[in-house]
């Protein structure tokens, strides 16, 4: 486990973090409503409750750093700089979507801002982030590759192979495990022989750190240190963020029978937005709130009014020419 260091964050910085978390929250809430309204054609996994993780990590990244994400990727996309309008349009299947309607919730691509893709398959993002690290090192840049993934992915072979390679080759990469205690309805404590993900870093000879994933400042600080290490040739870091998804695994799915109401309430009481808001002036919070509301409303209108893609484009770009 490593120690985080550095100066306390300014109010402006904290407000910016709050703003990003709020964009994610409000966008997700809008998506949830849109799902009920039948505007989303496929799956929709929200990030509600986990906003501090993407926000705290991505605040340390540049646009040319590469993020690889999961089925639960809206938050990573937004924190990395994807416009809520382009995200919503994607889930609505529109040509203006971030993936031009090809992907939906689980396949978000915005290489322009370093969102190199989310994946409907659990695991690959870990390897791809290591690969981005390889590329960045080979090409002598100081860019870093970042993987976000769930606790469920930590039991997958990709975790083992990816972390080991990143460690032996000292690749500039961050492995951010969002341990929300469940993979769909299966508790991590039941599927992991050792449910402390950060501790597993020892098996790879890599620094590992456990942070409160609902505390955006803690996440930010841990990521800052890891990013600095990566950029300066110090190699990869595993960061386990303990957090919680407060909505169902995916929209429209039942959310009962596998976790207690008390547990959900206890985590809601530790809502990452609430925790940060308590440290900031109410006026500022209110201002951000109305700004974000306007942005998300506009995004929704944009998405809803965007055209569907032309079926004639359904087979383009299978190959590079």
């Amino acid at each position, binding site marked *: 486990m490593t120690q985080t260091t550095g100066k306390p964050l300014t109010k402006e910085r904290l407000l910016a973090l709050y703003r990003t978390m709020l964009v994610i929250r409000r966008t997700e809430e809008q998506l949830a409503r849109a799902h009920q309204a039948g505007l989303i*054609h*496929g*799956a929709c996994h929200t990030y509600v409750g986990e906003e501090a993780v993407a926000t705290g990590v991505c605040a340390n990244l540049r646009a040319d750093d590469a993020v690889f994400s999961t089925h639960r990727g809206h938050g990573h996309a937004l924190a990395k700089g994807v416009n809520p309008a382009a995200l919503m349009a994607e889930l609505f*299947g*529109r040509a203006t*979507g971030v*993936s031009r*309607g*090809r*992907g*939906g919730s*689980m*396949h978000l691509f915005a290489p322009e801002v370093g969102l190199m893709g989310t*994946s*409907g*398959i*659990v*695991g690959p993002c870990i390897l791809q982030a290591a690969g981005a690290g390889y590329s960045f090192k080979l090409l002598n840049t100081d860019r870093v590759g970042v993987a976000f993934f769930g606790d*469920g*992915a930590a*039991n*997958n*072979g990709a975790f083992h192979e990816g972390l080991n390679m990143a460690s032996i080759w000292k690749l500039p990469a961050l492995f951010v495990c969002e341990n929300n205690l469940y*993979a*769909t*309805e*299966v508790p991590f404590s*039941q*599927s*992991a022989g050792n449910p402390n993900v950060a501790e597993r870093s020892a098996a790879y000879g890599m620094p590992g750190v456990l942070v409160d994933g609902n505390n955006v400042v803690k996440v930010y600080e841990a990521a800052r240190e890891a990013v600095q290490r990566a950029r300066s040739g110090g190699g990869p870091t595993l960061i386990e963020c303990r957090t919680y998804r407060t909505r169902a695994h995916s929209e429209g799915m039942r959310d009962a*029978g*596998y976790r207690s109401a008390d547990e959900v309430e206890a985590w809601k009481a530790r809502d990452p937005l609430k925790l940060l808001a308590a440290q900031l002036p109410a006026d500022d919070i209110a201002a951000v709130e109305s700004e974000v509301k306007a942005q998300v409303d506009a995004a929704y209108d944009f998405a809803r009014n965007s055209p*569907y*893609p*032309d*079926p*004639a*484009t*359904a*087979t383009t770009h*299978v190959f590079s020419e």
Partner: protein
Amino acid sequence: MRELTYTAAAREALAAAMAKDPSIFVVGEGIGARGGNFNTTAGLYDLYGPMRLRDTPIAERGFIGLCAGAAMTGARPVVDFMFLDFILDAMGELINQVAKMQYMSDGRLKMPIVLRGSVGVGGSAATHHSGNYYSIFAHIPGFRVVLPSTPYDAKGLFNTALRGDDPVMFLEHKLLLNTKGPVPEDDYAIPFGQASVVREGGRDCRVTVVALAAMLRKTLDACDQLAKDGISVEVIDPRTVAPLDMDTILQSLHKTGRLLIVDETFAPCGIGAEIAAQAVDRALDDLDAPVKRLNGAHTPTPYSPPLEAAVIPNAATIEQAIRDLLAE
């Protein structure tokens, strides 16, 4: 007769087999107390508990390899993938271990393992949840590959799968899972390698259509349209693609002289190519026209409804393909 959904029909076969044979166990993500993402195991956990209904970590390669070892040592695993796409991480285990074990041990080891999962394009599931891999499994020696298209077939073929000692890929098209149909209460098994002539052509019938999985319903819809114009079509559902009942297809072709294969998945090296290749090898003289294939586009599956619709055949394109073939 009683009607059941496709999923319920297969579950009935599974439940009956588990009641009889304590060596059967099921693995998968959420197939325990949750009863399966598609209700494939609903109710069984309460009866049999975690040793027989085992929720797994997200470790597809791992649990297939584990099931291979279990099948080699006296157990009968059923692997429930939810979406079959997740099987790909386990291709090494499947192709090099599961499929080869009986051969390499010269028949001394058995490999009674049933691998099931939903396949196919539909419902904006997008490219990581829309795969159809049956042509690949039919290419590799050692697998039985089953593609039921009705609840009746689902139960009868699942029963056969559970009783044999071979690895079986039991592939359930996602658009069929909730379709209903008559399913007898009794315990029947449909042998592998027996195609079903789903719609018999009349005397004047001049075209045979082979349609697989979800394409069957669309083909029958197309045939209803064509019937209005007095056009008769013979429709065959192979039901299993390995073994493939080519004889039934060739019998029909002998009668009609024309063959179209309607298959949602990719054309190149697909099961449609195999059927066409066997037709031109064994029945050239019966062919009054080229053998045609109507396939999904050779592209990953897009999400947005108009894009998704554009990459797979539908009743209208099937109807047109039949008309075109008849015009040859």
